[in-house]
């Protein structure tokens, strides 16, 4: 069982209360990955309120009475068919359970459902993608909401503030294709195909007062205005190839919906949301500071073609020795790289935020993760140039543990190395199974262990385990550093 970590049992547990998205605990990325690898049904069922099969009466359960979690996957799997009726029955029960659960049709009362209208051409004529975050990707926004309801719109849909007010639907929230499709899948959005122009649904403001343009509603009522669309229709309208306007690729949509299911908030990535690169004065200041603090420059000097790297002589500290030893130039991250912008699949697609109180889509915080989505079947391992371009497109984010008084401490070194100077997550989507890989720009050359050998033990004021060691060495250098807390 433990070996076979694939679980094709896609049948869901039958009776689960709908989670309120606001109450969903946010898992770590690692946790999500572990869950994905081995979906243990029993564990899953037991983690739900009331457990799977026979929960308490107070639980809000769906009326799928014949399906219990046990029947979806009863017992362990078998090696092969042994032709017994027991086995046949077990399989038949599982299949029936799967059929029952998946036969569900999304039905809702109007007051807890949003209605959206599909107007793919409404913003198609817009030439700019918008300079302000409010109007971003307006050309891709193809579904307009009648009203925003519920928790889901906390991070989805935007009202295009820049739009002129005489355009119908200017004050409505417009959804991106992945948002619309995800809401349809959840059952939160009833998608409609309009029969007439947008003015039928959202009359221009000057006509609101008058009773003009009252669309005849026949016996079908609302259905005269537009056709309610199915999930199948939504897939055919929203799933497209890379670069199709108003569509999203399946792999991007799957990553989007998986992250949303896990509880993260996701927005399309835009350089507008990134903090500006650190200004030149700052780098200059840093450069000056580094000149003062370490007079020896980082670049290895030219060495004589022959002879020892360290010439015999009197050395008072370790630092010059190590500088003489450094032969190979090391990577040094810069805040203002001049690599070209990334192209092709390795481009940041989504900004991902942990769910937090006070999150508003109009004032996005800095994203917690930046994710590039690639298709496992059509994409090769990135080349160094692609990776570099991808990383350099993310903002400069040096490990902040460095900026502690008294220099970097060794305890945080691994943390700093892991954090990197820039980082990005690549989501590799293989037929709906997504692996998340984190890439960062690491600079091992920035962690100079030898500087610590010369440090005065008292100067840092930090208690570290290496302290006595430092003191001991210091004594060897002419008794400059004392043991203990300095004098």
């Amino acid at each position, binding site marked *: 069982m433990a070996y076979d970590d694939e679980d094709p049992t896609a049948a869901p547990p039958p009776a689960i*209360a709908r989670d309120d998205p606001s109450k969903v605990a946010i898992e770590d990325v690692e946790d999500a990955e572990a869950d994905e690898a081995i979906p243990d049904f029993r564990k899953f069922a037991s983690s739900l309120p009331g457990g799977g099969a026979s929960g308490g009466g107070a639980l809000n359960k769906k*009326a799928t009475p014949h399906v219990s979690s046990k029947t979806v996957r009863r017992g362990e799997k078998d090696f092969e068919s042994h032709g017994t009726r027991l086995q046949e029955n077990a399989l038949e029960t599982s*299949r029936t359970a799967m059929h029952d659960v998946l036969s569900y049709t999304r039905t809702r009362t109007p007051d807890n459902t949003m209605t959206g209208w599909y107007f793919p051409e409404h913003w198609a004529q817009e030439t700019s993608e918008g300079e302000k975050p409010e109007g971003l990707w307006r050309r891709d926004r193809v579904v307009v909401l009648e009203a925003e309801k519920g928790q889901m719109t906390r991070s989805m849909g935007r009202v295009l503030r820049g739009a002129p007010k005489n355009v119908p639907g200017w004050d409505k929230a417009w959804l991106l294709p992945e948002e619309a499709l995800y809401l349809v899948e959840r059952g939160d959005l009833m998608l409609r195909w309009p029969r007439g122009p947008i003015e039928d649904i959202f009359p221009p403001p000057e006509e609101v007062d008058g009773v003009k343009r009252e669309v005849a509603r026949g016996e079908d009522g609302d259905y005269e205005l537009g056709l309610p669309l199915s999930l199948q229709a939504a897939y055919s*309208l929203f799933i497209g190839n890379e670069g199709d306007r108003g569509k999203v690729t399946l792999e991007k949509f799957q990553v989007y919906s998986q992250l949303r299911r*896990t509880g993260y908030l996701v927005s399309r990535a835009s350089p507008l949301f990134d903090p500006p690169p650190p200004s030149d004065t700052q780098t200059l200041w840093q450069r000056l500071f580094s000149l003062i603090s370490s007079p020896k420059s980082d670049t290895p000097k030219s060495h004589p073609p022959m002879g020892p790297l360290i010439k015999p002589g009197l050395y008072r500290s370790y630092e010059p020795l190590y500088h003489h030893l450094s032969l190979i130039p090391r990577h040094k991250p810069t805040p203002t790289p001049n690599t070209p912008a990334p192209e092709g699949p390795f481009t940041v697609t989504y900004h991902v935020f942990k769910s937090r109180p006070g999150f508003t889509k109009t004032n996005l915080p800095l994203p917690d993760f930046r994710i590039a989505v690639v298709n496992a079947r059509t994409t090769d391992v990135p080349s160094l140039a692609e990776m570099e371009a991808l990383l350099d497109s993310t903002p400069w984010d040096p490990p902040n543990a460095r900026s502690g008084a008294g220099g970097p401490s060794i305890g945080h070194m691994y943390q700093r190395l892991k954090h990197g100077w820039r980082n990005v997550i690549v989501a590799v989507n293989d037929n709906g199974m997504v692996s998340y890989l984190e890439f960062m720009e690491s600079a091992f050359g920035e962690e100079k262990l030898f500087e610590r050998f010369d440090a005065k033990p008292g100067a840092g004021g930090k208690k570290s385990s290496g302290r006595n060691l430092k003191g001991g060495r210091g004594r060897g250098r002419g008794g400059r550093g004392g043991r203990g807390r300095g004098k």
Partner: protein
Amino acid sequence: MTSTTSRPHVRISKAANRYFVFDIDDVMYLRRNHNICSVFVGTMPQAPQQSAFMGLPIELMAEEAQVLVEKEVAYVVDDSKYHPARIAAAGPQDRQYIDVVKGITSDAQRSMRETTETRKAMFAHKGASKKKERKDKKASDAQTSEDVTAAPSADTEAATSLFDTTPEPASATTKNPSVTREAAPEAWLATLTTSDSLLTPAPGQDEPLASVDVPASYPLYAHLQDKGYFMMPGLRFGCNYNVYPGDPLRFHSHFQATGFQWNEDITLLDLVTGGRLGTNVKKSFLIGGRVEGEEQRKDETEAALDVRAFSIEWAAM
């Protein structure tokens, strides 16, 4: 088991080179009769905050779509073109389609009302404790209206018959603390899973059916499929297909299969990697391909390609 002959063909919906099946009856039919299970890729509307159990649609591998087309049990329609065109072209199907939606929503409404009434009767009868009631109300506020199952199939009759199987009021009441407030006077809304009635009749001869681009390993897939094996995408095991002796609901997989060209050189490293991994996960490494050249069987047909497969087992590790 349903008979293969009388059944209408399965409609495979193609969008951006992906192949989907939306109808649960089709999905179960393929599973039972054509050993194709494929991967569920949709969010479960009943449990939308988890990813372990997924719902409709299923995404077929290109190989699966091709096999079904060749067996003449399915046809592929380019839905990104055809479907919007069908919606836009208003016709008599609209009427039918809207009737289906109306049927489902009114069924849902009625069933909700019934549940509410039974509940009221229950509470009046038993005099349930206040505490419990409050708890119920809280739960139902969070989720007002999801305790209704309806058939995805197009005909309302099926939907109604399904409702007849609702459990006796007693058990329903304990399990379904549904809305306590009055049902909204407005009509309910429904999103069907398929657009069946809207898309019938199927595209005629004038509408060219979409083609399927299959990968090079297709002959091996078709061969194993013909032998009755279930196959899932195998990239997680570093192979083309993960081969099951029966429905993966019930059985572990036996092989990890990788297709090769008949005259293709196979590096030893590939064998070692595949073999070791297979042994580690208690599977055999299976390679195979379509026979070419002189060895090829003379009676090979397009339907039954001459494919040979070999399984490699690690003797010791």
